[in-house]
């Protein structure tokens, strides 16, 4: 009986991946007995998980972003904050980053930019609610402020476009669906997800560190696959807008991308650097040739400012900038 039930549940939930409502309706109409009733109940629970597909409120975003920021800082070997010189570097990165962020479509978030100690990797990361990090290794490969601004603008764009937040919502839904399975292991997180799926779909992560851990670590795991190609290109497109808005030359950012050795690689979904550079060039060209006075850009007025003395603390640059990685 147990195995028959398992088969029915598996079949019901499996079919649910395509047309859950239709499966439930058909099974109900067939009136096949108690086992089928249990399958119907399970499929209805799976359907209710879709109610978690709602945009989180800012409080949930703050909680998720804060916890992810802790993970990024831990993974990056900590933040460069030892002494006035390292703190001065962070102040400079915040000055460049906050200027861009205050011109973004989310100008009032409390944006925070930080430098990770990691000197081995050429990497930039962001987390919801306005956290952006760059590795020391990335800063060693930067030649001017416009290149740094390009990297920061790209990460700001991921936050503005809520790419990580969308991935978190997918994790919520998939964990909820797993929790409805016949062999699901009951956990506090699972029961809270199921409860939320019966309400407005939103979670109070701050109220339960167990739930927070489950959701944040699930989201960190999902990041392992990297950003989708369309998300990367959308982040680059918004980054170009932010650079043009602030007066930086996006060509410098394109040059930095060209210096990286990353070309998909481990991040199979990433667009190639050639595709990214081609898009940047095209967007700038369109704005240079625009006839609309609001869109037209005088490229001669765009800048590639020199890096300040505070930047010396990052150490000498390397010949190769390594594989460019990026996580939301």
């Amino acid at each position, binding site marked *: 009986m147990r195995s028959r039930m398992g088969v029915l549940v598996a079949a019901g939930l499996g079919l649910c991946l395509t047309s859950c409502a239709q499966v439930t309706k058909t099974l109900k109409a067939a009136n096949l007995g108690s086992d089928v009733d249990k399958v119907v109940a399970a499929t209805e629970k799976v359907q209710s998980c879709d109610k978690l597909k709602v945009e989180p409120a800012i409080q949930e975003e703050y909680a998720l*972003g804060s916890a992810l*920021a802790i993970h990024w800082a831990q993974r990056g070997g900590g933040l460069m904050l030892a002494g006035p010189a390292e703190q001065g570097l962070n102040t400079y990165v*915040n000055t460049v980053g906050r*200027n861009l962020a205050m*011109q973004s479509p989310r*100008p009032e978030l409390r944006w925070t930019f930080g430098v990770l100690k990691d000197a081995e990797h050429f990497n930039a990361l962001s987390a919801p609610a306005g956290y952006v990090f760059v590795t020391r290794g990335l800063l060693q490969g930067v030649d001017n402020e416009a290149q740094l601004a390009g990297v920061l603008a790209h990460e700001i764009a991921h936050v503005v476009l809520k790419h990580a937040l969308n991935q978190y919502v997918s994790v919520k839904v998939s964990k909820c669906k797993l929790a409805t399975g016949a062999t699901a292991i009951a956990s506090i997180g699972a029961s809270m997800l199921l409860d939320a799926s019966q309400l407005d779909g*939103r979670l109070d992560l701050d109220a339960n560190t167990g739930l927070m851990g489950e959701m944040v670590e699930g989201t960190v795991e999902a990041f392992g696959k990297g950003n989708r190609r369309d998300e990367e290109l959308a982040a680059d497109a918004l980054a170009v807008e932010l650079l043009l808005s602030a007066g930086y030359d996006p060509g410098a950012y394109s040059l930095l991308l060209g210096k990286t050795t990353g070309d998909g690689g481990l991040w199979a979904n990433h667009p190639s650097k050639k595709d990214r550079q081609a898009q940047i060039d095209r967007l700038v060209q369109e704005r240079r040739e625009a006839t609309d*006075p609001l869109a037209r850009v*005088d490229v001669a007025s765009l800048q590639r400012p020199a890096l300040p003395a505070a930047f010396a603390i990052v150490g000498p640059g390397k010949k190769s900038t390594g594989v460019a990685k990026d996580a939301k």
Partner: protein
Amino acid sequence: MRRWTWGILLLALGVPVTAAWAVKKDEKLYVKARNTRVLKSAVPTADVVAVLQPGQQVTWKGADPKNAQWHQVTEPGGKPGYVFQTNLSTKPPNMELVAKDGKTRAIDPAAFVSSGAAVKALSPGAEKYGNEKGGDYKVAVAQIKTLEGLALKVTPVEIDKHVKQAGLFPVVAPNTKLGTQAKGGK
């Protein structure tokens, strides 16, 4: 050739039509950046007529014929002035979703600031979570709190100073003061 004929022609050729930027005289535009200055004339050191915040609307009159980076507008109070080109947008800034008293509502940036929801530090749950994980995570909690303190000190005043030194565009003004600008445009 009429405008719509051009549109059809461009679509037929597969050329993207940048309708997002199209603006006509007397149409409303949004201010997108924090502390957007409306100046008396089309120079960055001119007297400040008004300081607007993201999401506020101005009436667009056209680009200044001598310097196309400055655009003539009428601010919400009806006063004429000039705004830097990249402060203006045809699209409003994003709305923020705020939960309060069991309900969730989307609010504009101004309401977001006044609601107090914009005041963020490391969330209490995340701080507890990181401290409970211990080791490097606990260290990370302390470091992010320090970093947030540093970031908070980078105000529009510091940004404006840097922008001037680097020769960037005067988009984010240092303050909301009206009238004559301090020496150096600060």
